């Protein structure tokens, strides 16, 4: 058993459930240390942050700020470049809202067909508010986003902002963001990378990527739900308008006027998800202890095994980039509806996702109503895949009757 494979035992879910969990793209399972950290906070440390002179509140604040430092170190950024949000969606909304005064009628925003609705709809809203145009990068018939197409679209549309996912939530394909960011920079185009799917698998390095904004959710990376991160280059964050306003984000308030704190404070109003944020430190420390190289090797081996098993079944169509992939696979069987296949798999305790995966434009590009999605993580093993393939073969028999 490889070192990575032995980590499964750290996840209590697998000791208590018979479900073959192949839906990590939706949310990851949590290791014991994260579950413990949440319980520990509420049992022994519970206090609000930034508000009390008492020791308990100061301890909570100190842990809360340590969590920020922990994320910053992990992605090679500065502490003041990390904004806590409730998830990827809120992070993107924060940026899209904050950019409102910076866009106008003749500007354009460039996104791709592969994006999750969370990286489409907020930009549509920004376009509506500002009169800016929304432009799109096409995918090929397999749903793959090509670096050349991205460059051409930047050249053609001269966008103010390029918003791209690091990896597709439907196909797992890793998009050529390094090239895209470099090219966008040459054309004075801001870049936002949606790292919701990629963060856990690819350990992104902000200095290396050099994007303006990078967003992700804790819950897809072993952490609790309700915690997200917005990374932004400090100057870029400072330039954004405030998103939500209220307590904590202010410097000084009179009845008619307020001044705001500097970033990241000006974006963090109201009581945050303190326990969740502190528990995310536990998740990050857990991830840090695993060599990303070993994790990727293991996940890639597992993914190759999955592809081989699926390709051996007559009538299966696989989508996306099978080479550059975080371990997520979308497929269909002949013309069968993904809803039927996923419902039948469910009767075998196989948890996969089916449908349009909040990526309807991509479904249109692939000309399918939906797909069945298998998303792997390092705590999965070949037995999981064998059980899935066994169930899938039975499901196929049933729909073929």
């Amino acid at each position, binding site marked *: 058993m490889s070192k990575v494979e032995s980590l499964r035992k750290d996840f209590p879910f697998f000791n208590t459930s018979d479900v073959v969990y192949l839906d990590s793209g939706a949310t990851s399972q949590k290791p014991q240390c994260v579950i413990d950290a949440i319980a520990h906070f509420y049992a022994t440390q519970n206090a609000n942050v930034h508000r009390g002179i008492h020791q308990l509140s100061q301890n909570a604040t100190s842990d809360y700020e340590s969590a920020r430092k922990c994320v910053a170190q992990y992605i090679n950024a500065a502490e003041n470049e990390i904004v806590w949000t409730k998830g990827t969606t809120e992070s993107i909304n924060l940026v899209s809202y904050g950019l409102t005064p910076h866009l106008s009628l003749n500007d354009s925003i460039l996104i791709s067909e592969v994006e999750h609705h969370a990286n489409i709809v907020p930009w549509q809203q920004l376009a509506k508010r500002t009169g800016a145009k929304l432009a799109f990068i096409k995918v090929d018939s397999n749903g793959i986003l090509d670096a050349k197409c991205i460059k051409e679209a930047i050249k053609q549309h001269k966008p103010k902002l390029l918003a791209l996912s690091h990896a597709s939530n439907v196909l797992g394909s890793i998009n050529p963001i390094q090239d895209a960011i470099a090219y966008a920079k040459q054309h004075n185009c801001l870049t936002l990378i949606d790292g919701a799917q990629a963060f856990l698998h690819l350990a992104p390095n902000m200095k290396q990527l050099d994007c303006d904004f990078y967003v992700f959710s804790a819950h897809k990376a072993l952490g609790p739900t309700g915690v997200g991160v917005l990374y932004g280059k400090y100057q870029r964050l400072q330039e954004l308008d405030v998103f939500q306003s209220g307590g904590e984000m202010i410097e000084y308030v009179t009845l008619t006027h307020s001044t705001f704190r500097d970033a990241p404070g000006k974006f963090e109003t109201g009581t945050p998800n303190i326990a969740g944020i502190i528990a995310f430190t536990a998740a990050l420390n857990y991830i840090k202890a695993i060599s990303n190289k070993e994790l990727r090797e293991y996940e890639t081996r597992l993914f190759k095994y999955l592809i081989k098993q699926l390709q051996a079944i007559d009538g299966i169509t696989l989508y996306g980039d099978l080479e550059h992939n975080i371990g997520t696979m979308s497929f269909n069987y002949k013309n*069968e*509806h993904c*809803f*039927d296949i996923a*419902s*039948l798999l*469910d*009767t*075998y305790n196989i948890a996969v996702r*089916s*449908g349009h995966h909040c990526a309807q434009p991509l479904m249109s590009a692939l000309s399918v*109503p*939906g797909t069945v999605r298998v998303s792997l993580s390092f705590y999965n093993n070949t037995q999981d895949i064998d059980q899935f393939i066994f169930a899938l073969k*039975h499901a196929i028999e*049933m*729909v073929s*009757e």
Partner: protein
Amino acid sequence: MNKNYQKIKQDFEKLGSWQLKYRELMLLGKNLPSLSDALKTNDAKVAGCESNVWLYTGFAEDETTVLCTADSDTRIVKGLLYIILTMVNGLTPDEIAKLDIADEFESLGLAKQLSESRGNGIRAIASAITQFAKAH
């Protein structure tokens, strides 16, 4: 209740596992006539479904009993639609209004299919038919 529906009920009562239930549903679904593409309009679509479901409510030629037609692009939902339509078609609006479709699904062992989280639209279909009956 008509004979066809009674027969379905008897058959389903014997089915233990969801694998058997789905198998039976998919077989029943084959009996549901397909709507022509021209009738698969957005107006007829039932909102909130993971699959496409189209429903038409109306009356039979006798102008007193209800005749609904419906279709879906998934086998399982077609089976569920077949059951609902077999249950309600031929009844008067009064009879349908008195019918508790959720109760019927419970006794068929298909209650799970009516739950809000299923996203198969059966709940919305049931409520659309009940509303139609109550309005007439």
